[in-house]
């Protein structure tokens, strides 16, 4: 209704001006047909804009979802053909053409990723604990300066191209073991370099969300700081920490470039992390695709099936991480 008031041409007539200035009636001035038309047009315009924008934004959401669904469908339709017992029970040793499996690559991925997690999770969580629980509460300039430096380094490392992490570890290991040395452990170290900042920032966020009043409650009971952290802060943050670690795992489990550099590829089973090349699922996909033998279709099928296994693994990890976080918020209530 105020719209009609503002649209009233000023000084259109002395009686109208009087109406506007006298109390409640001012808000419903007499309508003239021309004004009503303008109002209707304005409303219609608004409704059209609203509809157009709704459709446009919904299309954006749909377009964003299409590639993912298409990817899942393609992987599923191409990959299912080799999801058979042989695929999960055999390596590629001595296989040329049809047959063969990815057991060695699955084991390689599991071992390398677990080792990377064992390295990255404690370092990431430890760094986050130090930053949130100690450095941020410190009044020493040295500590706060060091904390700022650590945060900068973590931020930069989080954006590090994964192949650079691979090259870095390659160079590092070449110093000790000489050039050309490849092993699952080197691959795990490279993945840990990528994973640590992911875990660290996730844990930092989760720890910062633990209410300060719980810390004060523990301290006021006479708890030493470290026990306040281990008995109150960490248990409260645990589901979030778990989901942070799982997100880190799903980030590195599909990494190809660093593993290609430092863990290499092999057709055979190798369960020794310390010695010799070790296959992994991403590198397996790459090598099947790149080095097709006589029966090219069999190589394609194996690559797709390995891709499917990898996608399912990543989805499962993401889902677990989300569920773990949701379970935690439900319990807090």
């Amino acid at each position, binding site marked *: 209704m105020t719209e009609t008031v503002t649209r009233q041409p000023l000084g259109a007539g002395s009686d109208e001006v009087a109406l506007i200035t006298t109390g409640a009636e001012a808000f419903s001035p007499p309508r003239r047909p021309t004004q009503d038309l303008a109002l209707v047009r304005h409303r219609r315009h608004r409704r059209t804009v609203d509809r157009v924008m709704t459709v446009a934004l919904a299309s954006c959401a749909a377009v964003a979802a299409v590639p993912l669904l298409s990817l899942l469908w393609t992987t599923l339709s191409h990959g299912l053909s080799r999801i058979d017992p042989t695929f999960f029970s055999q390596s590629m040793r001595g296989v040329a053409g049809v047959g063969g499996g990815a057991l060695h690559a699955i084991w390689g991925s599991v071992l390398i990723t677990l080792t990377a997690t064992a390295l990255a999770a404690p370092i990431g969580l430890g760094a986050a604990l130090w930053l949130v629980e100690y450095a941020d509460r410190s009044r020493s300039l040295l500590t706060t300066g060091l904390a700022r430096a650590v945060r900068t380094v973590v931020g930069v490392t989080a954006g590090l191209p994964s192949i650079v992490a691979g090259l870095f570890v390659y160079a590092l290991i070449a110093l000790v073991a000489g050039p050309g040395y490849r092993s699952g452990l080197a691959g795990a170290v490279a993945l840990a370099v990528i994973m640590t900042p992911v875990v660290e920032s996730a844990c930092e966020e989760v720890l910062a969300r633990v209410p300060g009043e719980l810390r*004060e409650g523990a301290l006021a*009971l006479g*708890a*030493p700081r470290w*026990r306040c952290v281990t008995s109150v802060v960490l*248990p409260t943050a645990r589901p979030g920490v778990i989901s942070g670690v799982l997100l880190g795992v799903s980030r590195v489990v599909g990494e190809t470039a660093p593993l290609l550099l430092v863990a290499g590829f092999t057709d055979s089973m190798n369960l020794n992390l310390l010695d010799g090349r070790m296959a992994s699922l991403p590198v397996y996909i790459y090598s099947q695709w790149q080095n097709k033998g006589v029966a090219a279709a069999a190589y394609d099928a194996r690559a797709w099936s390995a891709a499917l296994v990898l996608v399912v693994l990543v989805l499962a990890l993401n889902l677990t991480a989300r569920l773990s976080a949701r379970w935690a918020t439900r319990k807090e209530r």
Partner: protein
Amino acid sequence: MSHLKLDRVSAYYGAFQAVADVSLDIAPCSITALIGPSGCGKSTLLRTLNRLHETTPGARVTGQVHLNGQDVLDPATDPVEVRSRVGMVFQRANPFPTMSIGENVLAGVRLRGRRLSPRVAEQVVERSLRAANLWQETKDRLKKSGVGLSGGQQQRLCIARAIAVQPEVLLMDEPCSALDPASTAAIEELMVDLKADYTVVVVTHNLAQAARVSDQTAFMSVDRAGQPGRLIEHGPTTQLFNAPTEAATGDYIAGKFG
């Protein structure tokens, strides 16, 4: 009996002085209420008494607080040891969400690294919950989470947790400000029971509460924002409420500011 004696206590947050030169004798086994307008530093003063103030980055304290002759604020005094003698209940009930009701009561004992036999632990839980008037409501659900209790029950659980470690002094920082009248009445009743064994210092915005429960009242005030809070007047509650010696005290009690 725990005699708490403050001697020219000043508290700072960085360059800002929140409390200036408070000297105060707190009688043992009584309830002392700290009243005053918002921002007068009463909560800050309370938090210096168990050295919780210094856990805020940049915060510091000067002056002395004697607890049975020992200076609590002395840098040589271990703050962890002080806090095990001076318990605290906060404005918002803060039971530990990952612990059951029983574990919450025992948290103070366990957080200090002491182990209890199951039998002793049971006794401590029952004694503390009884002392906090919470035993009847919780005895059948000790293994359930403390977060499921009502606000007033949570606050009584926090009181049980604080007294489970048998402190000498109990500090309460607006313990009822988040509670409904019925829960408030339950806590007030509990406070009166507690003063038989503990020296209680309570910060409150609720003047009627101060008048109802406290034996001694200390009135703090601040001239204007940015100035430190000062102790204006301290005395027996009835005297302070009925015949205050300072004009500011009378004005505050009459509701003229604050």
